[in-house]
């Protein structure tokens, strides 16, 4: 009986969801022309960004990116909230094996290279594939390597949360700056420069650098919390 009610409720909800989403974007003249030509044209002529995906993700659909960053932030916060009481002090953990000297030396060599790759990926987000999310995740894997190799490698949670809040606040502030300059949320208001230069694309590189820092801090904090869980 209970299952039947659940199935019925789901069916009704699904029906109304499909019913309302079927018409999405089909009303009006948008369906004939589409927005893809508009995006491609504006990316080249106005924003002068080499990577079209970046211009869509950060500029035209920048609000969606803000939503994604918020989802990641909430997930990290929830995990930290659940595991907060069970965390260890650094150096007395029992979660992992002690690692061998070869692993330690190798991770020490690899760590700067990985972080440099991540920074490269998010700084060049508007020129080459990649961007804030990808670069941030690569940096977090570098920190993961160090955390796995060294028992006493510690990351300050205060610094992480400071970086994260700073990046998040400035993301929103840049969005409002676009509104203040007379446009919409996250509209470009800086000079765009020439195409294929590092300093081009207006606010896109700045926003992607902020997103990169935010994602790196969030994921590093998440891994740190999981690794330092008490066994008991």
């Amino acid at each position, binding site marked *: 009986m209970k299952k039947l009610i659940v199935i019925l409720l789901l069916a009704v909800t699904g029906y109304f969801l499909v019913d309302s989403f079927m018409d999405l974007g089909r009303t009006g003249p948008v369906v004939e022309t589409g927005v893809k030509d508009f995006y491609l044209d504006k990316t080249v002529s106005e924003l002068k960004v080499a990577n079209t*995906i970046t211009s869509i993700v950060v500029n035209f659909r920048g609000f969606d990116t803000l939503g994604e960053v918020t989802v990641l932030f909430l997930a990290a916060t929830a995990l930290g909230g659940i595991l907060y009481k069970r965390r260890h002090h650094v150096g007395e953990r029992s979660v992992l094996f002690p690692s061998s000297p070869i692993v330690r030396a190798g991770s020490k060599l690899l760590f700067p290279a990985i972080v440099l790759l991540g920074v490269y*990926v998010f700084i060049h987000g508007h020129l080459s594939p*990649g961007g804030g999310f*990808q670069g941030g*995740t690569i940096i977090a894997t570098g920190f993961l390597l160090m955390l796995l190799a060294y028992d006493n490698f510690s990351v300050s949670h205060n610094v992480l949360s400071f970086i994260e809040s700073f990046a998040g606040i400035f993301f929103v502030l840049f969005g409002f700056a676009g509104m203040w300059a007379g446009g919409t949320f996250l509209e470009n208001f800086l000079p765009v420069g020439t195409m294929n230069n590092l300093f081009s694309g207006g606010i896109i590189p700045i926003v992607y650098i902020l997103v990169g820092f935010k994602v790196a801090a969030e994921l590093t904090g998440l891994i740190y919390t999981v690794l330092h869980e008490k066994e008991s």
Partner: protein
Amino acid sequence: MFIILVFFLIILMVGAAIYAIVQKDLLYAVIATGVISLILSALFLLLQAPDVALTEAAIGVALTTIIFIITIRNTVRHEDDFKDRDDLKSAVK
């Protein structure tokens, strides 16, 4: 040739997924899911989506696999190690 390569990768992915379900040793199952992500990121690269391929390689292959491995170290490694709910509870605690 390209189509054959793509289909070969897809078949490998399905094989790894079935292995991950059938395998009782959870560590091997987790590594099989990591292999799925690796092949998926190669597929994304072949299908002209390098942005998504980078994300998939970093998150799917590295982060998710490591978090699952840490979870296995904190709980149990073999699927048969717990028979009912109470066993599972004591293992998780």
